């Protein structure tokens, strides 16, 4: 579905990240994303970071031309969006532990508000923590981890997750964040015998499962994903190792 929406409110989450709220009459599930057109620059994928009836939001980290331009948008400005795309998280898999790393926290937030499950937000420093206010309101427990120890647990998301899993019972881990974090989350879940659902990222053009540019092995990240469970992740030989550029050439991570 394509639509033009009007921004109702812009919230500064931290020094480089803003949330844009708008009314959008579309059914969206936690974990889905939209394609956002920034006229004159680009069209880019953005997770839906909030779902409150008609009201939806996206939470954007300014890292390049399009996202910096988007940060100039104000209440009253209009955005052309299309979607929602992707499969979303399955919240019915028993006791959940939900993890957001960096701006990946945007993607998991609707799952936190819908399930109220235990949540970890991980970031580089206390300055990079986002959406902790929303999470604190809905999650049964909220734990923060920072790489430099400036807030909460001193260490990364996977280390904190291991600690929590040792203390309590979880059936499934839901996570979105940088691919290295997800790779180690996957390894840890395998080792601990817990199911997981990880939201992956790839270069996207159509977002609708048509153009094939986002494929990992035989799966379209935009349509068959972006959320993949343990069983599917095991078949993705490119997960954690490589992605593809705009031409479709394989680019190794390390």
């Amino acid at each position, binding site marked *: 579905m394509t639509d033009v929406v009007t921004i109702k409110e812009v919230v500064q989450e931290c020094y480089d990240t803003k949330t844009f709220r708008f009314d959008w009459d579309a059914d969206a599930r936690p974990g889905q994303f939209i394609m956002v057109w920034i006229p004159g620059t680009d*069209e880019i994928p953005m997770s839906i970071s909030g779902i409150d009836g008609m009201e939806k939001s996206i939470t954007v980290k300014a890292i390049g031309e399009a996202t910096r331009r988007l940060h100039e948008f104000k209440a009253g400005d209009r955005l052309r969006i299309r979607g929602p795309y992707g499969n979303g998280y399955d919240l019915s898999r028993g006791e959940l532990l939900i993890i957001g790393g960096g701006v990946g926290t945007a993607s998991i937030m609707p799952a936190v508000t819908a399930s109220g499950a235990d949540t970890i937000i991980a970031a580089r420093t206390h300055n990079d923590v986002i959406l902790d206010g929303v999470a604190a309101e809905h999650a049964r427990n909220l734990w923060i981890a920072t790489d430099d120890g400036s807030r909460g647990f001193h260490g990364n998301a996977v280390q904190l997750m291991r600690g929590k899993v040792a203390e309590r019972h979880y059936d499934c881990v839901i996570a979105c964040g940088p691919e290295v974090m997800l790779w180690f989350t996957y390894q840890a879940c395998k080792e601990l015998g817990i199911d997981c659902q990880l939201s992956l990222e790839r270069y996207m*053009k*159509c977002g609708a499962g*048509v153009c*094939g540019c986002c494929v990992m092995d035989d799966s379209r990240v935009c349509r068959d994903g972006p959320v993949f469970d343990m069983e599917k992740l095991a078949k993705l030989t490119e997960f954690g190792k490589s992605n593809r*550029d705009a*031409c479709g*050439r394989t680019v190794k991570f390390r």
Partner: protein
Amino acid sequence: MVSLKTDIGSISLEKPGIVASGIMDETGPSMVRMIESGAGAVVTKSVGLEPNAGHANPCFTEVTGGYVNAMGLPNPGIELFREEMEVAVPKGRIVGSIYGAGPDDFSRLAGRMEDYGACAVELNLSCPHAKGYGMEVGTDPAMVKAIVSAVKSAVSIPVWAKLTPNTHILGDIGMAVQDAGGDAVVAINTLKAMVICPEIGKPLLSNKFGGLSGAAVKPVGVRAVYDLRTVLDIPIIGVGGIENWRDAAEYIMAGACAFQVGSAIGTVGTDVFARINEGLSAFMEEYGYSSIADMTGVAHD
């Protein structure tokens, strides 16, 4: 017993549905997935001599009845495409789609596709939004004839030419392919189109123009195949807006011996081939068609 088996000249397919160029055919594993989900063959993404990133985003949008896209032929280039072919070719029939600026480009690319094990090459003479390629070379019968002749003498596998509907001389172009020894024509590619966003007051696509595909183009495609059947003797492969067995049957009755499906892999899903195969068999059974050849062209008197 009805059979879905069909022959496109010297190529025999177990099933008549083929994945159209540009959808789920950029990587080896995705082509294998489509073969396993019921396609009789897969046409690769159109590949050129050099890696190409295509047009900038936005290059795609949904519209009523389909999609408008201006991907701009993104592809990793013929050299790297070897890796994808190595994965796909052992699993099924793969047709190598290629694009170039003239006879030399096409001949070189076709030779490589033959080396990689393609069962045929499909010449993209029809993309509506790539400067210097596609439709720009495919609407000139003399150029089409030169390209097809050059490729015919460069390879020994069958040569298919994919035609654009964006012309009033479709029959002449089809004849140019046939005269040059082309083994089949594929019709149609997308229709040149544009989308404007009123609230923003600008064309949506970065390239401004794109190509319309999906259900909306089906009647245009069926007409094109019907027209071509009246002038050509070589096999015709129908493509454009096929979503279910009825759509496929229309193309076959207009004169196609096989068909391709693109957009419906998005709108319906990757199981679209299995559904079409099942529906087509049931229809043929009920209406007394024992083979695709029996049904081909019946709409002509």
